């Protein structure tokens, strides 16, 4: 059985009874596209929508969608945390703040429930995986990372290019002050790779500690714009919460009340980039968040 999770044709390997219980039932087929959608009205997630409340255009062509789940889809939450000095105490992860940092991660893990998974990557010039995606509850021990350069672009791309298995919703939450010094990749490289990412990228932008010296307190404008673009294109959001668990609560609230739409592309050329546009047809003003497209290979 092959399923394409937003453009990534992958083998759906159902291996156990537990798997069957945990995963929503996906339609079998070779060309199925899965789109995770969050619908907000005045900032509040909107439950209770049905398939015909959605209109989905794939490269401008109307598609028949199936609403396969209104239930909570298992989450893979990848935290990507700038471990440098400019990020708030809660996410700093230094020796001094190790206790608070560990507590914050525990608080985050408490917001999840099995079979959700939590992963933690921290970066300065080094990108380190403190916790590979693991089913909650989890224990985190974070060693200090030298406060050298900040490879934000590289860390974001590394997270974006590690897809989750089908049947799970992948959320990347990036904690940063919006500064990058020393990445191999440029902001332009990052945005060019968004099409290859199956996750919704949320960005918690720390503006309180601000950069010192020549750069403004709100980060490098080019980098910040890149983060906004990545969040928008993947169906995520840029938040300005300084408190880690509070930010995560907000992110998870959106994700938990999301919808999973599937469709087999009809009437559109398969090869290349597909732009997706999802709207809600019910009366009213809705903020619909979903990835903006996928690459068919």
């Amino acid at each position, binding site marked *: 059985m092959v399923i394409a999770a937003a453009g*990534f044709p*992958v083998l759906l390997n159902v291996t156990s009874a537990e798997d069957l219980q945990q995963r929503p039932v996906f339609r079998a087929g070779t060309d199925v596209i899965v789109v995770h959608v969050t619908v907000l009205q005045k900032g509040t997630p909107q439950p209770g929508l049905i398939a015909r409340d959605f209109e989905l255009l794939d490269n401008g062509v109307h598609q028949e969608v199936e609403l396969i789940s209104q239930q909570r889809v298992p989450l893979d939450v990848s935290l990507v945390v700038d471990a*440098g*000095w*400019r990020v708030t105490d809660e996410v*700093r992860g*230094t*020796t*001094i703040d190790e206790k608070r940092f560990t507590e914050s991660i525990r608080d985050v893990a408490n917001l999840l429930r099995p079979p959700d998974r939590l992963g933690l*990557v921290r970066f300065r*010039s*080094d*990108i*380190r*995986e403190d916790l*590979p995606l693991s089913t909650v509850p989890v224990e985190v021990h974070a060693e*200090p*990372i*030298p*406060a*050298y*350069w900040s*490879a934000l672009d*590289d860390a974001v*791309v*590394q997270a974006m*290019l*590690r*897809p989750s298995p089908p049947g799970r919703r992948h959320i990347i939450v990036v904690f940063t002050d919006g500064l990058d010094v*020393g*990445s*191999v*990749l*440029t902001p332009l*490289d990052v945005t*060019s*790779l968004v099409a*290859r990412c199956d996750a919704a990228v949320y960005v918690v932008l720390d503006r309180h500690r601000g950069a010192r010296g*020549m750069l403004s307190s709100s980060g490098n404008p080019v980098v910040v714009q890149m983060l906004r673009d990545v969040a928008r294109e993947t169906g995520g959001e840029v938040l300005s919460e300084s408190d880690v668990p509070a930010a995560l609560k907000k992110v998870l609230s959106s994700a938990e009340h999301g919808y999973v739409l599937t469709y087999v592309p009809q009437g559109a050329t398969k090869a290349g980039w597909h732009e997706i546009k999802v709207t809600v047809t019910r009366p009213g003003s809705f903020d619909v968040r979903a990835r903006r497209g996928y*690459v068919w*290979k």
Partner: protein
Amino acid sequence: MTDRHAWIAIGLIVAFGLQPRSSSAIQLLDLYDEGRFEVAVDRALAGGPEGLPTLARDVMKDGPGWIAQGGEVRAARRRLVAATFTIDLTHRAFDGFRTASSYQLSQAWLRESSSLRSLVEWACILLRTTPTSSPLEQKWFVASVQLIKEMQDEPFLYGDDRRSLWSPADPRRLQQLQADYGQALNHLAHASSRVPGDSRLRLAAAERYTFHESWVVQNKRELTPSEYEKLEIQGESLRRQMNWTGLGLSDPFPNGLSVQQATILSDAEMFGELAQARRDLSAVAGDAAIRARVSLHLGCIALCFSEHDVARRYFQNIAAWTSDPCLVYLGHFMEGRIDEEDGQRNDGETAYRAALQTIPSTQSATTALAALLARDGRVADAAALIDQSLGAEHDRLDPWIVGLGRGGCSEWPSLLASLRAGLRE
């Protein structure tokens, strides 16, 4: 041991063991003289960055007496012991800046390690007082230059900052530097006078205007020859119009200078320096001892000026000229980057894989290769590479991080090891 003794022992450990101890300068020099190098430096730094100025003062005050203690026969060796201790200590203090886990601590190490330049200069003067220079002393001068390169202290190394390219005879600036640095100005000239013709010192002199090389390469801010020509003309015109004597990174914009004009001046200065660096480095490119390093610089500078074929040739030569994995890695990595920019993805992949063969699982080549593969739709291959890199133990800093900054692919560890070995003999 009775309970009572145990408690006394614990008390002593708490009282003396866990508190930063301020060893006297003489004790530290004795330890270093005995070959207990790490112990001496560890103890010297135990008081944290704040203890360094006092320590430096004590070494300069007590050092001459300690050197004289052994009589004339042992004085030459003791001078070298003291001198090596000073640069070993300063490098470790500067490492504190690079590796501290908090901003405040990092800045404290930076501030105080800079204050150690008077100590290094004291050692320099100490060695220069003798009429001839021994091979070990020559190593000391080369190592001290490497140290200052890594600290990126331009007046200390060159006697002036990079603004001298634009304003070579500004007496106010020179007076200020004299006041700030005293005798610790132009250490490279002191070293060159003791080790004339040394390849690494020639390289250090030629690297003077390479400061912006890494920034331009990292940010892919390349200029085509016609863009550079236009920038040169605009920059020169603005310099004359504004009576400009060099922008400098920390200068406030004067009244009337628009952001656009400031950008032109800044870019003109940046690329002007790179052009000067290319001339200086080309002059030493024939020196076999340093040609791999020179090639890396010249390749990067050629890339800054969008001369991809020229840059590629420089990078391709590196592996033939050196076995230093850091330099070889960067040669392959940069070649991959050019190939990728030129749309030659297969060649780019080969070059990135060659870099990863040189130093496996390294973050920079992993990320670049993963991005390249993902663009080709090979996301699973990209993810596997990233997983492998994140799961690997890295026993050295990524050459991309250290290699493109000043003092990149540092020879410091081998220079220090050689000095220490010489002192042990």
